[in-house]
């Protein structure tokens, strides 16, 4: 056994992970601030006005990164939950629980900003577009995960039940997306695709990437802080 693998399992203990989580949180908070300031600057001041949508398109700098985060965090959450289930490690399950609220938040943000973007561009607050619908269901998946864990008093059962739910959910997400897309194309739903900005100006793309990085660093910082709270609360 090399020293590398020993170190890895060493950090699987909540107590030893505690200080590491703190360091990661501090670094990521700083990065989040840097990325969001530069992202907002590029998105609001540098990127040019869109030819068709005018200034309304600037919502994209929040909407798309938030949507990316909502999906990414769900997969990461399900992965941690699966690891916790398979290897019976408390910390893995804590990581899953720590990510859930933030994931749900970004899902809501994606839906909210999507709606506010849809009103001036499509003329309506809501459309049963494949993406919006699947995003809405993703929000329910997050709520289900959080609700299930909240309603089971025994920690171990809660973690393991949540893991099964998260795994079943993650398998279902592509199914949901494709079924809705199928349903949409048949019923001739909204044919406008959000990301089909054909020749997206480089600055627009840069703005999106910067905001995505900002949200990602924010998520890590928040998750790390939350895990620390959990460790302090539960590992006496």
């Amino acid at each position, binding site marked *: 056994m090399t020293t590398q693998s020993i170190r890895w399992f060493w950090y699987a203990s909540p107590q030893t992970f505690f200080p590491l989580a703190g360091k990661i949180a501090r670094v990521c908070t700083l990065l989040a601030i840097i990325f969001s300031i530069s992202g907002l600057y590029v998105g609001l001041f540098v990127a040019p006005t869109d030819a068709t949508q005018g200034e309304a398109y600037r919502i994209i700098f929040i909407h798309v990164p938030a949507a990316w985060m909502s999906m990414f965090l769900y997969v990461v959450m399900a992965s941690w939950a699966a690891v916790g289930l398979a290897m019976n490690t408390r910390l893995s399950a804590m990581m899953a629980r720590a990510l859930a609220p933030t994931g749900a938040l970004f899902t809501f943000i994606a839906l909210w900003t999507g709606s506010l973007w849809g009103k001036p561009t499509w003329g309506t607050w809501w459309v049963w577009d494949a993406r919006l619908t699947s995003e809405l269901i993703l929000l329910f998946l997050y709520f*289900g995960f959080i609700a299930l864990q909240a*309603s089971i008093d025994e920690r*171990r059962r809660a973690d393991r039940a949540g893991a*099964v739910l998260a795994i079943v959910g993650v398998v279902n997400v592509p199914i949901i997306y494709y079924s*809705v897309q*199928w349903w949409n194309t048949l019923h001739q739903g909204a044919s406008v695709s959000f990301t089909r900005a054909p020749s997206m100006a480089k600055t627009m793309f840069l703005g999106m990437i910067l905001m995505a990085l900002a949200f990602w660093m924010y998520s890590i910082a928040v998750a790390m802080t939350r895990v620390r709270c959990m460790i302090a609360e539960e590992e006496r």
Partner: protein
Amino acid sequence: MLWRDLLLAVRRRSDVATALLFFVIVASLFPLGIGAEPERLRSIAPGVIWVAALLSSMLSLARLFAADYADGTLEQMLLGAAPLGVIVAAKSLAHWLVSGLPLVLIAPLIALQYDVAAPLYGVLALSLLLGTPILSLIGAIGAALTLGLRGGGVLISLLVLPLYVPVLILGAGAVAMADAGLSPEGQLLLLGALLIVAAAFAPWATAAALRISSE
């Protein structure tokens, strides 16, 4: 195992009646609420019938394992020689026979209420025939995860609803396609595929959930 559950279900005839009655009532509420315009009813019929089937299925899920949990049979199943996955599959089948199949059989009557064109009855029945077992199989996962919890029916619904959505979309979509004069083959084949996948994996997930819930 299956035989035992079926016998129990048949004796509790009220369960079958409850599911059926709920289905019929929900389906009958919509014209009252939305207005009985034939054209509109015809267009919403597939969706309404499918949603009613979904709700009816969710309603009976809470009871799926509750009785066995209460009288200790569940513990015996967990300790027993028979593979838990097979037992679960049998229970899901029994659940479907009691709450899903009756819906398939009575759906044409509801469709009649909604003045759905006769040729669509077949597609409707077939979509429900393929879809309702999926609901039973997936619903069992939710029932197993929430065994003995306070949240009860509402919690199960929250957990299971996102998983039901593709089935709803495909099922109602199949009928809508047929209604538009196009072939519902795609949706029905996908439903069939989902059924096979669910039958293969859901009992296994449910078994894992049962073990987790009973420790």
